[in-house]
């Protein structure tokens, strides 16, 4: 599929996509993780991948999901199976930009920083990177068909259990 430039995306389109990014982050930061898979289309891809791997075309991710079912399994495991110290996230998402179009999907990029606060009350910059995403509209609603968090922070502190 060829990639076209989106020169003059309408203000409405930009606003809808920005809203998607911000409500996505809001969902995670407010611990409404059961809703998190609903930001994706039925067939979807979600990856968190180190910049090093991404740049060298190496496949390994920290999280690799290629179906909505896998997203749901992540949350079931998060809630009921995995054991980890309670923590909260705050996402700062900036520079949401539509950089192209591929069929019915908009190619969207944004930068993010995730701050993590653990039980001891200390907040640290936990993970910083960029989103390399594909957004489509399903029944007028913006959804992620593909969301790839490419992180610069190549050293993951302790563990990663909450999605980014």
């Amino acid at each position, binding site marked *: 599929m060829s990639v076209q430039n989106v020169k003059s995306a309408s203000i409405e389109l930009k606003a809808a996509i920005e809203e998607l990014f911000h409500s996505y982050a809001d969902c995670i930061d407010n611990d409404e993780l059961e809703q998190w898979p609903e930001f994706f289309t039925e067939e979807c891809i979600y990856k968190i991948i180190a910049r090093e791997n991404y740049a060298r075309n*190496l496949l*390994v991710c920290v999280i690799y999901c290629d179906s*909505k*079912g*896998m997203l749901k*399994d992540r949350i079931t495991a998060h809630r*009921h199976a995995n054991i980890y110290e309670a923590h909260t996230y705050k996402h700062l998402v900036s520079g949401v930009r539509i950089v192209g179009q591929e069929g019915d999907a908009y190619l969207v990029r944004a930068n993010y920083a995730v701050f993590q606060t653990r039980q001891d009350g200390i907040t640290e910059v936990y993970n910083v990177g960029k989103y390399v995403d594909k957004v489509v509209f399903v029944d007028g609603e913006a959804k992620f068909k593909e969301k790839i968090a490419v992180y610069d922070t190549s*050293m993951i*502190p*302790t563990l990663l259990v909450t999605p980014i």
Partner: protein
Amino acid sequence: MTKLGVDTMQITWPAEGFTRVPYEVYMDPSVYEQEQLKIYRGPTWNYLALDAELPQNGDYKTTFVGDTPVVVTRDSDGEIRAFVNQCAHRGATVCMDSCGNTKTFTCVYHAWAYDGKGDLKGVPFRNGVEGKGGMPDDFDPAKHSLQKLRIETFCGVIFGSFDPHVGPLQEYLGEKMCGYIQRVFNRPVRVLGYNRQSMNNNWKIYFENVKDSYHASILHTFFTTFGLNRLSQRGGIEMDDTGMHHVSYTYGSSDENEDAYKQANLRSFNSKYKLEDQSMLQGRKEFADGITLAIQSIFPGMVLQQIHNTLAVRQLLPKGPGHCELHWTYFGYADDDNNMTTIRMKQSNLVGPAGFVSLEDGGVGELVQRGIVRDKEKSSFVEMGGITVQSQEFRATETSIRGFWKRYRELMGY
């Protein structure tokens, strides 16, 4: 006369021997210093890289032995080399990138240049400028190479040693451990990528965790939550003759005994949850022996894993008494078809810093480190499965942890 610092620390090990571990060894800075000398620069072979990461002449990768920065290269003759990443002039690192391909390593500070063997090839202004300055007449570049490590490879796994007297690698590994390495590295591999993880605990706590088959089905509740695994699956622990390396293995679920598990009344028995996408665990039988899970540790800091179809090497690196890092290298085989690669990628969700069955390991080490902080003179209790160091055909044991401490104490002189 006693030297200051590193040699003054004396650990009094509890009389019970390797069933006890004094908490002091996880915290004391001078213990950490001695480990760097007596273990990492001592008679050990340390994992450096996979042959498959350096396919071309001139390829290099930076890594560590203990906390010493090291460069591994394939030189212009195709030989694997390793040297300390420290300029022979004033000590700057001569290589900043994590990997690449080059004919020469040029230090950015004063541009001393070394070849892929680590030999000094060029010193700017060696004869001074307009007859003034420069190196003394007796300056001999041959005496200023980068510090070289001994290198040996086995089945495409590259190990390095600082000790000129350490025995051959295969002797160090022992026949049994060689067998398990060979089992995984039975044909050319293809590197699939890396993950890196840092932990706020002493390196030995993570290494003990790897050797601790007792915790596996208790702490890691993923399989049990989804009703996928039982502690009673057939498996065991094998060790080499010294006890310093180990393999913990499990056969695929055949003779499950649910009752025994329920009676143990573990919180982890619970299968009211189901995976939405079962494809994550659909794999292929890869090994004729029927082992679906094999975790092997090679002293002092390498872990080789087969967890279903995920294959990876973990390199454990100490970064101070209370910090360590884990560098994961995932791989498959060069002859994998696309489906197989997809299977490996899907299953990779099980492992790594976000792994369904390994993310807890990052957290528990920190719990130990936090818990023991004020009790250096107390010890941990390691008597599960008896008080001996021996191979066992069950996994409710800490035998391989005891093996680690046995060898550790010999090397450290405790």
